[in-house]
């Protein structure tokens, strides 16, 4: 059979060339699905691999044990613990960076660093300038992301307040560190490079600044393979207890790592859930298109059979035909996916401040891509070829069986009465072959569904953002304090000219404990009738926190397996570090995170620290903004100032520039798929009717009138597709939202017409473009040859 395949193969190549536009459109549709799959898969592996390599190369600590002041020799004792590979005692403290142009002091983390150590735990990647000198006390390494955000460079000086004393430092070099991949200002949940600084000084300088001569306040350690985390936490807490230990924690609870892992997990969920849907849709479309494409070859199939070619020869021929297209799609998709993966990987590298990116080009995805598209195409071709070869050649070769049209009854007759002849042709054709019409409409609808889904995705994010910044937090400025302060501070803030409203908050980090389930989190104490920062449930109703107990978010209650009425054990992680027993009085559904709310006074009573506040939300007069900032700068004990406007901006930037790129790509792909499908449907309709159209032209219809018969049909199908696409999009997004929601993030399904309108516009635009191409074909019909040659 292969021996005489050569002529058929030549026909195959020429036929492929003849339908090159269509083939290209199909290739793009399948490539869109495949490349999304390959891209996210490759990117996921690469990011994981990069994180792992980064952590390993710079010896990112496995455990942290902070204390107030521990003598250096304790390090020996810690290193003797089983499971400890290496340990260092370092000095780590909070600080405030003052920049002339910044509206408020900026929180900083300052750490001791031994510039001469060969392979220190929590090493840094020096990206610019030079290492600090082991002897000079006025030199620092500065976190590169912060320096970049403010245009600081090696050689510049920086003013930092540590332990209440202001120092001026020379920046020796800029550094990246696995400890600060995520630069989160305290009290914020969005990365902000500009408002978080990390700096490294040599040990002498740190000892002097924090009065810790011959002592350290944080042990950082790495594990040996047999390490037992729980055992080590207990041991460290025991050893450091006399020195003011605040509780050891493992890498999993290290803030930057925690966010990075969470972010990667989300990306990976998205990468697991989204691409298969795109692949499924593009496969479905490939299937439809291939089926119809083969159907248009019916007469040729009959002819080949009349010559004595067997059914198998015919099947093999068309299988090759569709496989060529499908494999083209798979290869383009794979190559494109790798390319996109690299590009996106680079975007993420910059976003996460990785010093390098380990890109893993994964060839297993090539196999999967090829297999998926080959199977889909083969399945589509199989049914079409089978139905074509089961016809006797005489029937297959007969001119496309003129379907039996009826003038219609009742309803159809009534409408027809109002229509001109071409419109009647459209109507009759659609109603004659409703199955085919529906399938096409369904295909266009499925493509549109992807766009609808992407739009709903955007709506959900907008909604979360809106709830976070306009419903939950309506303040302009949030001021956090170094430690809980007396509520006189509130009065002090209130007295600032330009501050119109002050609302205190008392929040405290805690370890929740119920039935041996532990969860590190915090309790937020809000005043009665909070207005600037509220606790709301998913219906945006105020949560009732008037009682003495704690109200937990549903997610948190689930983690802790606790119900209202139960007692919750709470180890406070600050101040005297008491362990409290607090009744759970309510459970609310929360959109973001795992909050636990209490009445502020009730919380303070439990803590035996009446009238303390840990921060305050302010509403300010925009005209006096700068003055207010200056006043706040002057208040001691302010740990950080976060501006809601900036946070909002950061969030939007993140959505647009960081992980959001992924979404943009999917949006573009959903458009490509819609356009590809519409174009193909139009082309196939054209091929099926070329002779009819030629006849119309011969009968004296103009090009426009002739085109109308075809384009009117296309437009009608597109319009039928709109509700189908809307429904499919809604279904797909409901599924996705459920799949993307984690214990910490509930993704809402927000029904908004604009999502549908947006997708409808894409479909209609795609239809208009496809229509324009087809109208061009109609205009070019060669009447003579269309009527002369039969094929």
């Amino acid at each position: 059979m292969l021996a005489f395949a050569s002529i058929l193969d030549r026909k195959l190549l020429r036929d492929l060339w003849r339908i090159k536009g269509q083939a290209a459109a199909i290739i793009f549709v399948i490539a869109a699905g495949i490349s999304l799959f390959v891209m996210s898969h490759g990117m996921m592996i690469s990011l994981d691999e990069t994180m792992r390599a980064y952590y390993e190369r710079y010896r990112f600590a496995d455990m942290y044990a902070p204390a107030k002041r521990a003598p250096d020799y304790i390090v020996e004792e810690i290193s003797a613990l089983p499971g400890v590979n290496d340990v260092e005692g370092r000095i780590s403290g909070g600080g405030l960076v003052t920049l002339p142009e910044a509206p408020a002091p900026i929180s900083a983390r300052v750490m001791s660093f031994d510039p001469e150590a060969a392979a220190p735990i929590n090493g840094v990647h020096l990206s610019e300038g030079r290492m600090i000198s082991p002897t000079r006390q006025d030199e620092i390494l500065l976190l590169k992301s912060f320096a970049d955000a403010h245009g600081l460079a090696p050689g510049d000086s920086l003013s930092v307040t540590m332990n209440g004393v202001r120092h001026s430092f020379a920046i020796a070099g800029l550094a990246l560190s696995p400890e600060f991949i995520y630069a989160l200002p305290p009290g914020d949940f969005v990365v902000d490079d500009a408002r978080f600084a990390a700096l490294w000084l040599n040990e002498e300088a740190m000892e002097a600044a924090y009065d810790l001569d011959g002592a350290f306040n944080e042990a950082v350690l790495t594990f040996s393979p047999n390490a037992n985390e729980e055992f080590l936490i207990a041991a460290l807490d025991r050893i450091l207890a006399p020195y003011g230990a605040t509780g050891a924690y493992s890498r999993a609870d290290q803030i930057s790592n925690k966010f990075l892992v969470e972010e990667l997990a989300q990306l990976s969920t998205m990468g697991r859930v989204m691409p298969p849907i795109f692949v499924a849709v593009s496969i479905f479309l490939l299937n439809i298109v291939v089926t119809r494409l083969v159907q248009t070859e019916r007469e040729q199939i009959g002819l080949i059979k009349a010559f004595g070619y067997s059914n198998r020869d015919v099947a093999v021929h068309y299988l090759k035909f569709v496989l060529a297209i499908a494999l083209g799609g798979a290869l383009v998709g794979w190559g494109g996916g790798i390319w996109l993966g690299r590009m996106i990987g680079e975007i993420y590298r910059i976003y996460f401040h990785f010093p390098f990116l380990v890109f893993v080009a994964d060839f297993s995805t090539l196999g999967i891509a090829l297999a998926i598209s080959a199977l889909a195409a083969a399945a589509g071709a199989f049914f079409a070829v089978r139905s074509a070869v089961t016809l006797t050649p005489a029937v297959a070769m007969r001119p496309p069986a003129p379907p039996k049209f009826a003038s219609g009854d009742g309803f159809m007759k009534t409408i027809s009465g109002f229509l001109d002849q071409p419109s009647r042709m459209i109507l009759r054709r659609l109603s004659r072959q409703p199955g085919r019409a529906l399938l096409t409409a369904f295909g266009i609808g499925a493509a549109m569904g992807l766009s609808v889904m992407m739009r709903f995705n955007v709506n959900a994010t907008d909604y979360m953002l809106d709830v976070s910044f306009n419903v939950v937090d309506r303040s302009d400025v949030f001021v956090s304090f170094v430690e809980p302060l007396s509520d006189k501070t509130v009065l002090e803030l209130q007295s600032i000219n330009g501050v119109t409203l002050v609302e205190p908050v008392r929040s405290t980090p805690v370890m929740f404990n119920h039935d041996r389930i532990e969860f590190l989190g915090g309790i937020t104490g809000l005043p009665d009738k909070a207005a600037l920062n509220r606790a709301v449930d998913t219906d945006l109703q105020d949560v009732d926190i008037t009682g003495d107990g704690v109200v937990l978010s549903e997610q948190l209650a689930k983690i802790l397996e606790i119900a209202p009425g139960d007692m919750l054990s709470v180890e406070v992680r600050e101040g005297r570090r008491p362990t409290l027993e607090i009744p759970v009085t309510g459970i609310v559904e929360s959109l973001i995170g795992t909050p636990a709310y209490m009445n502020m006074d009730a919380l303070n009573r439990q803590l035996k620290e009446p009238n303390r506040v840990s921060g305050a939300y302010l509403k300010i007069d925009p005209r006096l903004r700068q003055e207010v900032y200056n006043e706040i700068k002057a208040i001691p004990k302010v740990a950080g100032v976060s501006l809601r406007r900036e946070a909002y901006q950061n969030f939007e930037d993140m959505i647009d520039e960081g992980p959001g790129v992924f979404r943009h790509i999917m949006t573009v792909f959903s458009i490509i798929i819609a356009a590809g499908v519409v174009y193909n449907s139009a082309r196939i309709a054209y091929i099926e009717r070329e002779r009819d159209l030629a006849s119309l032209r011969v009968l004296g219809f103009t090009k426009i009138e002739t085109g109308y018969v075809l384009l009117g049909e296309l437009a009608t199908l597109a319009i039928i597709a709109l509700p189908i696409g809307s429904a499919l999009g809604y279904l797909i997004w409901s599924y996705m939202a459920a799949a993307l929601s984690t214990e910490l993030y509930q993704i809402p399904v927000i029904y908004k017409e604009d999502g549908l309108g947006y997708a409808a516009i894409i479909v209609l635009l795609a239809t208009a473009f496809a229509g324009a191409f087809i109208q061009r074909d109609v205009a070019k019909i060669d009447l003579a040859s269309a009527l002369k040659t039969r094929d």
Partner: protein
Amino acid sequence: MSESAVQTAPGKLAFRTSDLSKVYGEGPAAVHALRGVDLEIPSGELVVLLGPSGSGKSTLLNILGGIDRASSGQAYFQDDELTAMTDRRLTAYRRRHVGFVFQFYNLMPSLTAHENVDLVAEIATDPMPTMEALDLVGLTPRATHFPSELSGGEQQRVAIARAIAKNPTVLFCDEPTGALDSKTGVGVLKALQEVNTRLGTTTLIITHAAATAAMADRVIHFADGQIREVIENDHKVSPDEISW
């Protein structure tokens, strides 16, 4: 030529049918295209089928050519019953023995004249060289042209070359000149007669041009799905003397 050309010894029957019927559709809408056709066609003859439009000529030809199936009755090719053959055997029959020429040429638009002939020659057991087939219909200079670059008559001659290239035992032509002017048509008929006499190929030609009958060994008149009359022609003339 080759053995296949002489395998049809004179006197033997190429086709025989008995009570052959074909019904399209069912119920009141049923169309009886063939109503009990009994027919014998000796090997090596050139037979012309005449009859009004819709009388069932194409239907008969398609059934004999193995590209359509009868509703009832029998049709034999030599000693094999076509009406009892499986799809696979029909395919083999077409492949080995049958050449078709259709009214609308039915060339593969994406293949050149030469390649269209190759398409069939490649699956034949004992084909003649493609150029020889094209030469027989006088199309050597047009071998590399695509169907869209050929005139109707030229396309039809490619179709004939394609049909004869495999050295078929039987050649079926459904209105081969239907779309051609008289002069071009004569050229096509000459090509057919050439094949018939030189290769001994049993040839069935459907035509509306009654004058064509003059070149046949046998003329079958069809009407209303039945054979009206069979006339054996003792005074065959050359196609050159035919016009319509």
